[in-house]
């Protein structure tokens, strides 16, 4: 696996810059995860507050607003746990370059959700992040400087 890791630079060296970006984004998500986990994100209804404060002015479709308002505010603990677990999964996946394509798609979905729930000031950053996740999933950013190259060689398929 270690040989494959370094071999990936030789055979997919054109992806090295995007791999650096992938690791950087992964590190960002790891920082966000640590901040939330060590804080009170899972203990206090921060996510319910976020929904209440921002959903009124959100451009989310009505059915999304309805679901968030009806279920997610009440079951905020499960919702907060899922959001945090996805952040951790993105962090590990991007840093190791493991299952980057499916995780990239998952990241796209979670970023769209956060776009609906964020104040207008932070939306530009989230839009850039959304495009970045999409690009990672598209090119298979884990194939260079990542574990995905090892599995790609052995299994092939669109998910690597």
């Amino acid at each position, binding site marked *: 696996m270690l040989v494959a890791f370094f071999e990936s630079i030789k055979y997919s060296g054109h992806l090295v810059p995007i791999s650096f970006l992938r690791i950087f984004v992964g590190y960002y998500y790891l920082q966000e995860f640590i901040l939330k*986990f060590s804080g009170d994100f*899972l*203990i*206090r*209804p921060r996510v*319910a*507050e976020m*929904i*209440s*404060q921002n*959903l*009124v002015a959100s451009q989310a479709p009505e059915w999304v607003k309805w679901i968030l*308002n009806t279920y997610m*505010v*009440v079951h*905020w603990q499960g919702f907060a*746990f899922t959001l*945090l*677990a996805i952040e*951790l*999964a993105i962090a*590990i*996946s991007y840093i190791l370059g*493991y*299952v980057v394509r*499916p*995780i990239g798609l998952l990241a796209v979905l979670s970023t769209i959700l956060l776009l609906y729930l964020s104040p207008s000031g932070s939306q530009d950053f989230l839009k850039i992040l959304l495009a970045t996740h999409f690009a990672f999933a598209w090119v298979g950013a884990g194939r260079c400087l990542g574990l995905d190259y090892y*599995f790609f060689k052995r299994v092939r398929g669109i*998910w690597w």
Partner: protein
Amino acid sequence: MKHFFIFITAVFLFLFVAHINKNQNFLASEQKPTVRIFAYSSFTSKWGPGPQLKNLFEQTCECVVEFIEGSDSGILLQRLKVEGQKLGADLVIGFDQFDLQKATVELSWRALDFSKIDFDSQILLASKNEYFVPYDWGVLSFVTKKSKGFSTTLSLDDLLKSQFASKIALQDPRTSSVGLQFVMWVLKVKGETEGYEYLKQMMKQAHSFSPSWSTAYGLFKSDQVDMVLSYAASPLYHSIEEKNDDFVSLEMIEPQPVQVEFVGIPSFCKNCEKAEEFVNLMMSPEGQKIIMEKNYMLPVLKNVKIGTPFETIKIPFRLLDIEFPSLTEVDGVLTRWSQIRREISL
């Protein structure tokens, strides 16, 4: 895909175990009831009175106080409607006299009896409400710097003189309660016809109509304007916190408006008794002193400010009576104001 599902499951399991581990201590403290208090951000921030009141209350209440903040009272009411009934809200701090009717119409409140409290005579009228108790008050005034050399006694008409052109920072009444106070003040002392004409002149005269008091005050502090609509106690803040005595509030020839802030307990509260105890703390001399010193507003209790720098605040000889305008009245005024603003912009 098998790898993906195994990976995701492993991450969820890891987080679940870590969460359980981390919360073993927290669960013990959760046995205590949580008093959820909705308040505006300057009350709950570390320089506001909220944290100090919370610490004082938690020492004796066998409970945990949690603040939920909104940037202003409008947002507060909105959050209360969406989130309050589902997650619980025990106390709401920060409505002023313009919000009370809206709050009463949109939500139901628990009756409070604080009739035995020795209120300051200036705000006796505001203490008669069945559901909301006043906890601080302030006189609105224009604030300037002595070094600018203006007379400290002016009339509203003086503000239209050419020397103040583009030198006064005002607030947008649609988003700021101080801005709304100004509009209602003008209409009260000048009457409707003359009042709207004055507002039209003032729109040409003012530097800007900021969305909030803090933005307008920022313009003044950074010397972009010479004068700002603020509180009579604002100069005291600079004197105490910044050791700067250059700031002064103007005494207006017309009677000046008063802003009163209220606290109320929604009828869907979960820890209603604890919430009432918190209100008792706010209304105690100790609580009033904390609010006065952190909020730079006047206490509602008599005698609290005696022997403090707040005693030196010059309360204008004439104050406007505190009124509780109806929702329709406020909406009508705001619509007319917006219309004038559009006409001026064209």
